[in-house]
């Protein structure tokens, strides 16, 4: 029994001859004083409280500081760290805490694997943070509180996960799982009177079991692929359509330009014609001749070869066509 202690044995005083009674008494007093001081004073650290036991019975609880108790093992004190946040890890263990904390999760598969509500298997690693709320209950009501907490935590986590689908626990349900487990674990701890306050149950990683992981990754990949395909098609659309809109605009604007040109030209041409005609109408014959001769004067210099034939020599024409080469020069 861990908190029982020995009754101090009988103390016999044997006085060797030749030593005066006074010396013996002094020595005894000194020894008694030392033992008194050593067993009478004790300190309780800042994050602890002291549970004082007299003959094994809890008589008082003391706060941090220097204290005096009945010496000679009549009173004993057990410090309990009530202000310290304690932590339990499930599914992994911290190998070495530090700046880069190292973990191992090998060999804890049985701790992490659990059945989900749709009868699939999930792998959950989690931590429990707790604090000793009631040191008397913590010490005296339950044997091995830590093991009790671990067993209860595993049970509770499985209850929570067992009511959720694998999809839920892997995605949105993570925080919810933590909250539900915190409440449930606190209930169990209260039922067992462990005197423990559950601060936090927090799933660290919730993953599918190793053999199933690749297929879950495949789902993620296919989701990415879906997005990629859609984006590609969308970008193709964006590449073509705005340009086509511009081109369409161009087509229409060009047509508008043509229309304007065509109408303006027609107007111009007709205005010119009308102007000339009005003058022509005033002196028809002479204007007609003038226009004809002016045109001829303009046309004839441009013409490559001019042949003048008499009106009676019309049959010379066929001969001329034979020397077509001369035209080139």
């Amino acid at each position, binding site marked *: 029994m861990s908190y029982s202690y020995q009754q101090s044995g009988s103390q016999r005083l044997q006085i060797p001859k030749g030593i005066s009674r006074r010396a013996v008494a002094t020595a005894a007093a000194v020894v008694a004083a030392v033992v008194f001081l050593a067993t009478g004073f004790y300190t309780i650290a800042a994050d602890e409280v002291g549970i004082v036991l007299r003959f*094994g019975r809890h008589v008082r609880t003391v706060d941090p500081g220097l204290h005096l108790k009945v010496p000679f093992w009549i009173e004993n004190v057990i410090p309990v760290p009530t202000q310290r946040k304690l932590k339990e890890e499930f599914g992994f263990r911290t190998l070495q805490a530090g700046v880069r904390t190292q973990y191992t999760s090998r060999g804890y598969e049985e701790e992490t694997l659990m059945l989900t509500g749709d009868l699939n298997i999930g792998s959950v690693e989690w931590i429990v943070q707790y604090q000793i709320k009631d040191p008397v209950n913590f010490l005296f009501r339950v044997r091995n509180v830590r093991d009790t907490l671990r067993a209860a935590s595993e*049970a509770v986590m499985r*209850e929570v996960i067992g*009511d959720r689908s694998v999809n839920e626990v892997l995605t949105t349900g993570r925080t919810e799982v933590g909250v539900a487990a915190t409440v449930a674990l606190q209930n169990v701890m209260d039922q067992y009177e462990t005197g423990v306050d559950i601060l936090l149950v927090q799933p660290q990683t919730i993953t599918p*079991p190793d053999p199933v992981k690749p297929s879950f990754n495949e789902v993620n990949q296919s989701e990415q692929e879906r997005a990629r395909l859609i984006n590609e098609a969308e970008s193709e659309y964006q590449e073509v359509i705005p340009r086509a809109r511009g081109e*369409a605009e161009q087509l229409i604007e060009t*047509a508008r330009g043509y229309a304007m040109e065509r109408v303006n030209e027609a107007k111009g041409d*007709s205005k010119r014609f009308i102007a000339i*005609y009005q003058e022509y109408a005033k002196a028809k014959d002479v204007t007609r001749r003038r226009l004809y001769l002016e045109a001829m004067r303009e046309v004839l210099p441009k013409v490559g070869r001019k042949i003048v034939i008499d009106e009676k020599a*019309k049959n010379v024409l066929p001969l001329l066509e034979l020397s077509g080469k001369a035209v080139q020069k």
Partner: protein
Amino acid sequence: MKKLSVIPIVIAALIVIVVSLSAYTVSEVEQVIVTQFGRPVGDPVTQAGLHFKTPFVQTVNRFDKRWLEWDGSPEQLPTRNKKFIWLDTFARWRIADPLLFFKSVRDERSAQSRLDDILDGAARDAVANYDLIELVRGTNREMVFAEELADVKRQEIKKVEHGRKIILAKILEQARKMSPQYGIELVDVRIKRLNYVESDRKGVYARMISERKRIANKYRSQGQGESARIRGRKERDLKQILSDAYRQAEEIRGKADAEATKIYADAYNRSPDFYSFTRTLDTYKETFDRNTWLILSTDGDLLKYLQKAGENAQ
């Protein structure tokens, strides 16, 4: 004087010895049964502190007063639907009646083995009477499934009639019928671990993989479908935009041509003869070049003076 002084010391020593043999302490976590030659004497001592007994003839038997652990060893058990599962349970118990406990089981080790019998048996009975889902689920909470599987899953997953809590309560109830005869009080039984046996696990993994594959395939085909839809929309929009523009352009052109035609007709109608005269002259100007041969007859208007000057002049 010297001889006399030894006697009180001896007497004092004797008193100390007797007191130390008769006094004993009980800690907060203990309860004690005092036995005399192996037979319990008086009521159990449950109050912590300093107590006394008759020296030499009486013995102190200490028992724990706290909630104690019972951790079942994992077992393979068949459920009602003939699925083998690994079940690992634990319970918390205490020595409620130390006298009865002392008489019937004597110590904790044999108590643990009695509890093994009681709880393992109760668990075995309970598991055999229920389907696996009843052990896994606690409530009929509405679960959220992957959208792709929701319909199938809702049919597949049956509602539970009892659930884990009720089954555990039944196990506890059954065990509690037996435990008081050993002076033991059971507070709680829980399932620490529950899993498929190794051979079934592979099948479950295969099912999970196929479920995921289904989702993945759906996503992929959705992506391809959506992409095809967008491509189709692109083609449609392209054709629509371009043909619409073509239509508008041609309309505009046609209208302009018509207007021009009207304008020309209005003007030239004043004198079709003069129009054809001037237009013909223009055509000469535009079409004749150095590759043109012009054969001019002297009876034409231009050269008529080459033959006769002023014959026709008036």
